[in-house]
């Protein structure tokens, strides 16, 4: 049964008309009216006239708008789906219109990093402490008066969702109300939603897996098969869990859809940008060359750097992430990296729960 919130009186809001925002808007529109915010008027025109956006056919119940104030006034439940780089700014812009009774469930898999002036994330000298990174839910809390926040995360490749394939996700929040309203709003015959209380764990699962996608690309580029890939995914998971735990997440969260689920989807999807970077590295290209010939910087490069720097500051050992970091930034050859990993002395298999 659709909740009251999905009735015509209270449309659901989506912020950001990128490929994921559009896919989410279309999913939500299966249960009622959706207002989709974009700051670009041409996108509104395109959706209105061509009934398409970023290659996806638009559901007729999605109403595009550039009016953030109107959207916030009409919607109680809003799904921000903005890339992490621009997330804070959009929250700042929305802040005057957001009220304490809003529920916000973000769909952004990324960190908001605060670095000292002149420092960059890819700089080897830059150090990172847990206090320097924010998840998107913390950004919402910092920039608005909204307290009832949550996130949506899982193995959700936009193209497959847009293609109508069955999939599932996790909605996490400390507030039962947010989980309840979010799952009711998005569930449909082709999209299942599960709840979680571990907001941080679910957020971290979505971000940390990007580093493994890059390593998976390396394994693929070397021409190795499923044994090696399974090795990478399982041990990669254990590294993600250890880092996540150190950052305050519940280890169990990484064993669900938003953890291992998303990891499998990302590591076995050869079309992702992260995977491609790893693949090309294994084929002998340099990182500089790959970056120079790519239109967008793959998120995974940043994530590897973040994970490595965090692991250093927390004093935890993450061999796969460290080796990937060395390959990316310190000219370690892929063969050398592999040798190091195979010789790495390791104790028991499950040591992270």
């Amino acid at each position, binding site marked *: 049964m659709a909740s009251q919130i999905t009735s015509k009186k209270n449309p659901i809001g989506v912020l950001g008309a990128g490929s994921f925002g559009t896919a989410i808007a279309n999913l939500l529109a299966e249960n009622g009216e959706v207002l989709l915010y974009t700051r670009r008027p041409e996108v509104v025109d395109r959706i209105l006239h061509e009934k398409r956006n970023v290659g996806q056919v638009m559901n007729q119940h999605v109403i595009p708008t550039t009016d953030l104030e109107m959207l916030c006034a009409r919607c109680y439940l809003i799904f921000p789906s903005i890339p992490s780089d621009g997330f804070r700014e959009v929250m700042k812009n929305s*802040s005057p219109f957001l009220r*304490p*009774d809003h529920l916000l469930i973000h769909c952004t898999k990324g960190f908001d990093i605060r670095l000292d002036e002149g420092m960059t994330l890819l700089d080897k000298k830059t150090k990172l402490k847990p206090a320097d990174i924010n998840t998107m839910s913390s950004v919402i809390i910092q920039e608005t*008066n909204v307290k009832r926040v949550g996130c949506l995360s899982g193995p959700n490749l936009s193209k497959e969702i847009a293609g109508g394939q069955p999939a599932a996700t996790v909605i996490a929040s400390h507030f039962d*109300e947010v989980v309840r309203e979010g799952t009711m709003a998005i569930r449909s015959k082709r999209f299942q939603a599960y709840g979680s209380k571990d907001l941080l764990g679910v957020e971290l699962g979505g971000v940390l897996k990007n580093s493994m996608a890059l390593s998976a690309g390396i394994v693929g580029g070397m021409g190795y098969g499923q044994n090696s890939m399974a090795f990478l995914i399982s041990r990669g998971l254990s590294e993600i869990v250890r880092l996540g735990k150190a950052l305050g997440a519940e280890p169990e969260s990484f064993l669900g859809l938003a953890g291992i689920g998303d990891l499998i989807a990302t590591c076995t999807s050869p079309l992702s940008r992260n995977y491609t970077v790893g693949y090309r590295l294994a084929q002998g290209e340099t990182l500089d060359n790959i970056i120079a010939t790519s239109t967008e910087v793959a998120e995974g490069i940043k994530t590897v750097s973040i994970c490595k720097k965090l692991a250093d500051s927390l004093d935890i050992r993450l061999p796969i992430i460290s080796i990937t970091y060395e390959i990316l930034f310190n000219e370690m050859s892929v063969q050398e990296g592999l040798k190091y990993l195979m010789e790495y002395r390791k104790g028991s298999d499950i040591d992270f729960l």
Partner: protein
Amino acid sequence: MDVLNSNLNDWPLTRISRNREKLMEEIIIETISNFNKDYQKGGLIRDELAKTLYLERTRIKTEPWKVDPEDDFQFWSHVKNKLVKSDPSLEGKEVAQDIEQQLLKDIVTRYVHEITGYFDPRFFLFARQVLPMIFSRLLNASFGKITGIFKPKVLLKDKLFVTGPIERIKQLSQKGTIILVPTHFSNLDSVMVGYGMDMVGLGAFQYGAGLNLFNSSLFKFFMSNLGPYKLDRRKKNPVYLETLKTYSRTTILHGAPTLFFPGGTRSRAGNIEKNLKLGLLGTVMEAQRIHFERNPSTLAPKLFIVPLTISYHFVFEAGSLIEDHLRRTGKEQYITSDKGTSFLKNMSKFFFELFGATSDITLSLGEPMDVFGNICNDQGESIDKFGKVLDIRKYFESKGALKADDQREAEYTTLLGKILVDKFHENNVVYSSHVVAYVAFELLKRKFRKEDIYSLLRMPEEDRYIPYDEFVTAMRNIRERLYYLNNNQKLKLAFHMTKEVDEIIDHGIRNVGLYHAKKPLYKTKDGYISSEDLKLLLFYHNRMEGYGLANYV
């Protein structure tokens, strides 16, 4: 003393005490209704009563107190007999339910009578005159200057400083209900806070005093009429907890200015509280929502949370508290050292030392906040972090309708707890004694970095020497960092902290744990800094935890 003095009869606590019987009746009805709401659905009332009975009988056997009523055993035997006889399979469901409800009412009524406090304005006036006089008398005795009981030389008010936005808090106490939430280091906190608040004209607060304190006849004599309700930490049964929460919520709804120690008990390790007990704080959140349910937004009475950090140079129970802490962390077998010294003896010695030295106490009040941690202005409006007026009623709303949601409110309470911990640290007035203890212990920790804390505490005295130069250098570094934190509103510095480093060190060493027979810190004749009691030093050191100072020593 203040304008409030003239209309003592209009004080909320006086008004509430006047209608004490009616209030108790209301609390009994409300508790039973809440309890039934929670348990009746699943048919669990009987189970909960049985659990309560079991826990109460165990308490009577294993932990009897002088203050317990004489008929305790008979009462619970009666409950047992009734409960056994009311087996639904024998008596039928309806008869059994009637008996269960009657028992529930009996138990709740008993608890409400035990818990409910009493405030007598005449006694309050008497205590206001007499208590400081006793304290001051002690002071003059300690100086050997007996000048007659009516002419003390130094007054308690000269030793007790209350800082913070007092005028605003006073104004807000007229517009809503003040909920004072102090840090908790000593059994004397409630007396100090009570006296301090009255001294600056904030009137009387109700607070939950441990029932064990009423074992002392002196405490009982003074405090019974001054507004505390009684809290029994032995009773963890579901009926008692529900009664206590209902008591707290109902009196707050009636406008009783209330004092909670959100840390629950005194800080064992000597640190500023990090983990708060949220049970009673949760009743504040509920009470605010109920005010909104009963009134339109603009007229709904508001609850103003005022954090309060208490600074002492010494805590008279420090020894037993830190031992308790170490025992709890469980790495060493300790012999119980709490010898059960009497309240009177402790109190006399405390005041003797307090007045006999340059020591003082600061009660540092934070800015009043709403239940979501937004600062409130003079008009009682909530100001959000962007400087705009915020209608907090909407936090209790869902899709435009205000409704109770226990889980949501529990989460809000958790968030409030985190904000309070930050505020405790920000309002903390740092004393020289805290800093010297911190620096000394950190230096020792560094010197013996291979040892764990327990081995360190057993270090023989000859290994505890710190060269004075090394100590001064570390103090200089720390002071610089403290200035930085002070400028960024992360803590406050006592006036004496602005002096030269040598003076701060002297002042700190003189004052740290002044009360104790064994000195936590002293200067040796040949110019070293050392400690006679490392556990006490650790206790006073812990006060400065939570500011990330270790790297600056």
